């Protein structure tokens, strides 16, 4: 409609326009490339089968060390495969699990039973059961790979899962009532399931006589809760559902620190996590995961029989493994933050103020590049 034929109108093409078109075009190409690659990798997988790890079974070296463990030594669950030796490196939340299982059934969690220095234990007759987020009992799938038992349980929903393994052995008329307990919190970062009081309820079960429950306080409000150094932890020991007074609770941290405390009148015991991670500041890894083990031991003189054997004394041992991380306040500094913020705030405020104050500049000179 513009009549001047001679030259194009002054306002040039919108300057970001060319970028917009080319960027969109390249994005589409990228998407097609990915889909194509995806289909191709899917096809190659079906045609040639999943790439097997080197075919012959490698005998797991650590298995030989299964020693006959004495009924006294505490056994406990761990979520990392003891045969692999990568020390608890697991990321904040591992991705492999969620996307690996091709059959798309509910995701499940695997645990191993170990004792002492992370040595796998097998060959014990155990009764294992797991309570899901609604505290209903589910069964535990036991399978054996290279001689190592693995206990896996399904974790369909976010929430707390409590895995128990109970073994009762009578040795020279003392019943060793050993329980390995594991509380697993299934949660994905940023997921939006509702976290309410229901989840925090203590477990009421008659399956096990002795139990040690971690009491959850109110600042635990998301499925992504992690115990960190410096937190005050509170536990409640119960025997046959009733609070267990002055049972002694042993706390051993991998890093070597240990402590024993007694449960008080209504069976609760609490202690403050110590800080035991002091790398130089630039090697600090805020996701450094460490393990700790709580062992609740209590003995009482009750006699009873199991099967045909008699016992006069019961010796309860309950193990409860936990993992903990460095406390965020170790690597986050509020003061520095505010300091930097204030500094920038004041500095830019002054700069803007001066710039606006001296705006009566004469004509801006045009610079020539000599």
């Amino acid at each position, binding site marked *: 409609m*513009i*009549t*001047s034929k001679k030259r194009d109108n002054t306002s040039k093409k919108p300057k970001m326009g060319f970028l917009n078109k080319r960027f969109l075009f390249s994005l589409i190409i990228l998407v097609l490339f990915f889909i194509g690659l995806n289909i191709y990798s899917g096809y190659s997988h079906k045609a040639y089968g999943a790439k097997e790890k080197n075919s012959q079974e490698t005998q797991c070296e650590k298995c030989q060390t299964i020693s006959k463990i004495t009924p006294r030594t505490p056994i406990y669950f761990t979520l990392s495969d003891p045969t692999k030796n990568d020390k608890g490196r697991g990321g904040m939340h591992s991705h492999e699990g969620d996307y690996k299982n091709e059959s798309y059934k509910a995701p499940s969690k695997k645990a191993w039973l170990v004792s002492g220095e992370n040595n796998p234990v097998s060959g014990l007759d155990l009764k294992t059961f797991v309570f899901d987020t609604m505290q209903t009992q589910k069964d535990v799938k036991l399978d054996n790979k290279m001689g190592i038992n693995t206990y896996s349980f399904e974790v369909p929903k976010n929430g707390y899962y409590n895995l128990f393994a109970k073994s009762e052995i009578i040795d020279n008329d003392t019943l060793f009532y050993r329980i390995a307990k594991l509380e697993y919190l299934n949660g994905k970062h940023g997921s939006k399931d509702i976290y309410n009081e229901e989840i925090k309820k203590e477990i009421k079960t008659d399956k096990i006589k002795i139990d040690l429950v971690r009491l959850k306080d109110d600042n635990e409000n998301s499925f992504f809760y992690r115990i960190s150094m410096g937190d005050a932890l509170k536990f409640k020991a119960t025997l046959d559902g009733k609070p267990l007074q002055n049972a002694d609770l042993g706390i051993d941290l991998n890093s070597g620190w240990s402590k024993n405390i007694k449960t008080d009148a209504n069976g609760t015991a609490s202690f403050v996590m110590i800080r035991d991670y002091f790398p130089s500041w630039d090697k600090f890894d805020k996701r450094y995961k460490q393990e700790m083990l709580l062992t609740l031991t209590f003995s009482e003189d009750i006699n009873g029989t199991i099967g045909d054997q008699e016992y006069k004394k019961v010796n309860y041992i309950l193990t409860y493994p936990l993992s903990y991380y460095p406390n965020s306040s170790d690597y986050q500094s509020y003061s520095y933050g505010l300091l930097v913020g204030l500094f920038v705030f004041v500095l830019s405020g002054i700069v803007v103020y001066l710039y606006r104050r001296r705006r009566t500049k004469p004509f801006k000179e045009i610079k020539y590049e000599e």
Partner: protein
Amino acid sequence: MNTIHNIESPKEKQNRHKAMEAIKLLNTLREDFKAPISSMEYFYDLFERVHCKHESLHDDKTKIGTMCIQIPSEIIYALDGVPIRLCNGFYTDDEIGSDFMPQKACPLIKATVGHFASGNFTDKPDIVFSPTTCDQKTKAGTTIESFGYKFIDVDFPRTKESEASREYWRRSVKQFAVELSKFQGKKLTKNNLRDAIKKIGYAQLLYHKLSEFRKNEIVPILGMDVFLVTNAFFFDKIDNWIEATEKLISELEIRAKEKITVTGKASPRIIYTGSPPIFPNYKIPQIIEESDGIIVADETCSSNRMFNDMVAVDEWNIYDMMDSISDKYLKACTCPIFTKNEDRIRRVVQLAREYKADGVIYQAFAGCTVYEMEQRSVLEAMEKEGIPILYLESDYSPSQGGQLSTRVEAFIESLKTRRRNKK
């Protein structure tokens, strides 16, 4: 010997001459056209009072003379002054002025200079601001200053598109405001500037309401009457002007309802553009409307360009208001003094489309080089749009009526036949 009668002084003679020019046009407006509008009487009477009876309107306020509409009148009203636009349409002053100006100079500027030379003002400007727009008007500044007037130049850029000219004009408007407030001894505050913007905005609103009526088939008001109304805005008290225009609009509403028309049955609708028709030099508009054409819209700086674009302000603080005002005066202006002026062509084409015009009449004063130079590009554009256009060159002398009217009549008849063939 006959009885002794006193002889008129040169001033009185000039006044009488101007009065005779003025009354002649006012009478033709009052008497020679169909259905005269009663509320136009205020404007006829105003012009008669000022130009024939030489009454002064603004004795209480300082009178700020402006040589062109590009001086922001919002700032003048804010500083409690009264803008008097000094463009002049009198042949009498043109003759006086031609002694000071080159023979081929633009008659409007000769008239203005003549007016200053005679110093015979009903409202004598206490100070004159002149934006550096037309060449001749800018150069005339020194001549006018030599007559002993306080004359201040306001720098006005000539390239509209460049960012530098936007900054340059904003800075010179602020400079103008500083000088004016120094002269007036008053401070430019947020409130008085805002009220001034709203007052001028309201006047513009009335103009737009007025021109709405000229869009419909039955045109209730003459083009010349609208020129008179807008010319009155040059010097009249703004409140009186607003009140009179409101009455005019309400009367036009009645006339529109009752389908009273000032035109003939099929009088062609004309867009008038080119050099500004200033009272009383309505020579060509008069010829057009006397030969059964009707001016439905115009693109001239004495009328449409002065009212068309309104100031929009985001935050009502002084800086934002000043920037919006200066942007509006620079960016919206379609004056031919700019290096590139496609805006004017787009405006004329848009007016032709909006007012359903049949043809365009492009009038340039002899000696007004910028309008004469743009004639070629406008004609070319109109041909492309298929809108018939007539180019006329004229000046203030009353004598060449015959030759012009025959050309205009021929053009208007050609429009009528085009319209008939199209039907």
